[in-house]
């Protein structure tokens, strides 16, 4: 090499890459994945954001498969889930939450139309017994099949589906969708023995050589309170009426129907009564209307259909074909107080919808177990006091709804699988939750929510046709695209673009980005302009 430089030049000519401006930095940007609030709140543990990500692109099968990793009932859940995910959705700060539930329903229906399937895992040779073919039992069976275990479900009723079939009326949950999703699980090799009540769990387990047991018998007995009565008005139990409607047995709902209770079951009965031609339907609630435990959508739909809510009343007596109601007074944060003032209303029949409890008779031959506060205690792995006997769904302490039951089924299946292998694994640590304040929402297009079509109120009053209609292929993708991908990179290229130092490397579609820390000056423009909050600034340790 010739070391002689031209006149007056003392340094080699070169590009600026020799100048490592990364040394200026006091903070460094770091890519991270935060937990989106929808995923965080989903009782079934769905990766909602991930399946919306596929749906945004019209990749509906991939989206459906992503749901199926956690939940084998998208068509059911797209109808009956109370979608706490939407209540948590950060999009509410812009316009309306993403219609997650409607997209899920669309995907679930697409799967049924196109007969998409999930294959069971390689056979493990283990056999699991499940008691109760409700959502928890069916979900558990599905996940156990994914692990390759053999599953037999014993069900005392003549049909599977549990409370989704017997507790939720057809206008919310059409039977054919439920049947199709159950069949898909059966097609994976799950045996369901109907009309088979198990009186002795342990004896059955030993007789057939099952390796583990999952109990999910639900809470099927309606609570009944004593009301002073001259027997002039028949008093019925909500859960038995809903069961009767499903099995086409005369229910006795006619004339002026009064439902006592403010939960979802009460409203299901009230809305069914409207459809069966009742002259009037009143729902009597001890609490004020805004404190009713029923889901607000259910209350609104019931009101639209002509159900009347009578808040702050308790039924004190049935006398000469009249209901005597005592007026209640709301008090802050406490139960309403009796006022000693009364009024009477006309009633042909009264239906008590005051909660359900677990049938204790199943414990007769399980002396090691006992109920506490009406439910069966389980440990963090969903295992009862008997080794190898797990339990979930409405019979264990937790919120009682379909989504929780499906989550229990999955969690129990995973724990059963680990227990069979001899060791429970530690749960992985949760990521930090992606809060609205960590995001730059200016970038999201204005896009009002696609509201699913609703059967107009008059049509719904006369039949059990499904109330909430479907999204179609065009607006399902549109709705999915309203997802802001909170906390997780969706490759908008903003970090790659806004870096004044060209210190972000784009790795290509699906591979995200990397920082060139040799040149990054730590200005934080990438973190500030990241729409979804997937970049964090961390102090540089010097």
């Amino acid at each position: 090499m010739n070391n002689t430089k031209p006149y007056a030049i003392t340094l080699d000519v070169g590009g600026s890459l020799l100048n490592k401006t990364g040394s200026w930095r006091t903070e460094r940007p770091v890519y991270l994945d935060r937990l989106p609030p929808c995923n965080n709140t989903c009782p079934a543990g769905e990766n909602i954001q991930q399946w919306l990500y596929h749906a945004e692109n019209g990749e509906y099968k991939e989206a459906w498969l992503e749901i199926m990793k956690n939940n084998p009932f998208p068509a059911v859940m797209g109808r009956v889930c109370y979608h706490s995910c939407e209540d948590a959705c950060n999009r509410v700060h812009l316009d309306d939450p993403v219609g997650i539930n409607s997209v899920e329903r669309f995907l679930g229906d697409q799967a049924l139309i196109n007969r998409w399937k999930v294959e069971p895992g390689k056979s493990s040779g283990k056999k699991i017994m499940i008691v109760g073919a409700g959502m928890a039992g069916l979900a558990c069976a599905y996940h156990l099949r994914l692990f390759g275990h053999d599953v037999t479900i014993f069900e005392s009723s003549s049909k599977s589906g549990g409370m989704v079939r017997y507790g939720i009326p057809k206008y919310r949950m059409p039977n054919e969708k439920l049947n199709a999703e159950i069949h898909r699980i059966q097609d994976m090799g799950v045996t369901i023995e109907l009309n088979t009540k198990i009186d002795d769990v342990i004896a059955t387990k030993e007789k057939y050589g099952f390796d583990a047991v999952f109990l999910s018998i639900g809470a099927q007995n309606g609570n009944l309170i004593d009301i002073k009565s001259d027997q002039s008005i028949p008093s019925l139990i909500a859960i038995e009426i809903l069961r009767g409607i499903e099995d086409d047995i005369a229910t006795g709902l006619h004339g002026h129907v009064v439902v006592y209770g403010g939960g979802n079951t009460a409203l299901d009965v009230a809305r069914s009564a409207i459809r069966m031609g009742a002259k009037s339907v009143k729902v009597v609630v001890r609490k004020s209307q805004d404190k009713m435990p029923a889901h607000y959508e259910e209350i609104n739909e019931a009101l639209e259909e002509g159900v009347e809510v009578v808040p702050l009343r308790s039924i004190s007596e049935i006398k000469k074909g009249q209901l005597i109601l005592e007026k209640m007074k709301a008090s802050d944060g406490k139960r309403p107080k009796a006022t000693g003032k009364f009024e009477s209303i006309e009633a042909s029949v009264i239906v008590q919808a005051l909660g359900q409890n677990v049938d204790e008779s199943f414990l007769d031959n399980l002396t090691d177990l006992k109920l506490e506060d009406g439910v069966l205690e389980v440990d963090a792995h969903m295992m009862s006091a008997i080794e190898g006997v797990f339990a979930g769904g409405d019979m264990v302490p937790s919120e009682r709804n379909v989504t929780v039951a499906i989550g229990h089924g999955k969690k129990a299946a995973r724990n059963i699988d680990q227990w069979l292998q001899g060791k429970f694994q530690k749960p992985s640590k949760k990521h930090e939750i992606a809060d609205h304040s960590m995001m730059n929402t200016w970038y999201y297009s204005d896009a009002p929510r696609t509201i699913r079509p609703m059967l107009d109120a008059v049509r719904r009053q006369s039949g059990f046709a499904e109330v909430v209609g479907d999204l179609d292929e065009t607006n399902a993708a549109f709705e999915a695209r309203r997802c802001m991908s909170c906390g997780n990179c969706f490759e908008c290229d903003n970090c790659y673009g806004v870096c004044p130092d060209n210190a972000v490397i784009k790795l290509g579609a699906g591979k995200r980005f990397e920082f060139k820390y040799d040149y990054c000056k730590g200005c934080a423009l990438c973190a500030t302009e990241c729409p979804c909050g997937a970049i964090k600034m961390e102090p540089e340790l010097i």
Partner: protein
Amino acid sequence: MSHQQVKFYQTGTLTVGNRLLDAEERTVQATIDRSNSLDSGHRACQGCGEALGARYAIDSAMRATNNKLIAANSTGCLEVFTTPYPESSWTMPWIHSLFGNAAAIGTGVAAALKVKGKEDIRVVAQGGDGGTTDIGFGCLSGMFERNDDVLFLCYDNQGYMNTGVQRSSATPGGARTATTMPVGPEPGADFDKGKNVPLIAMAHEIPYVATASIDRLHDLEAKVTKAMSIRGARYIQIFVPCPLGWGSAPAQTVNLARMAVESGIWPLFEGENGEITSVTKIRKKVPVEEYLKPQRRFAHVVKNPETLSTVQEIADRNIRKFGLLEEQG
């Protein structure tokens, strides 16, 4: 509109890229093989708007000319931080001119290329607002008048930042600079002085004039691309916030550009042959305070309701004059 905004696709065309858009609808900056004409290792401050604006504009011009581009660069921040002898961050043919004659150098290069029959090679001249609106103004006006085949890019950071933040004729009223201190009865830069060079350029009736901002990349790239599709004298003034001179956080650079556009302080428009042909509408209108507050140079303005309303009036006038708001249906 200089580019068709795509809506309802998550972030539409508001972000740099978007996996849901067709490749040709995304920006040059979103491509993995962008030219990075202004490469890493330059010595601009953290969060420099000018470094960002220059890469945006030149990469886009490189794409439009199939990488056949020569740049003349006036003295100023952009030259100093990219090319401290013997290093350079430019990965394209680049000439350093004097402070005041980048336009004339551009003219000369274009003339030479014409003589040599190499008119497929295109020329840009670029500089800061000082080298454009003050010191280089004579050469610039001459280039316009002769309609020389040069695109002049002015990166407007509203002052002489490289030499210690002195006032230029692009410094806005009220702003604190080293030469317009916030003292006396009328603190900061005078409100009744300064030049609007984009409108002066239009008065020359040259083929193409535009204003752009680093917060609106699709718009900026569409304007540069359009400028490169035209022969003759063209002028684009790009709004580039300066954390050092404005007393703002480096992380706020893009946001300040956005607030300038959304408040009406920096109207985005295009003019052809002396006529305004399009304006970019405000997306979500904000009061000028949103723009002023994060900047120390306006701290005294924000505190004084009278001067604050004067600035708001300027923004409102721009909104009226250029029709920056969507028609209310």
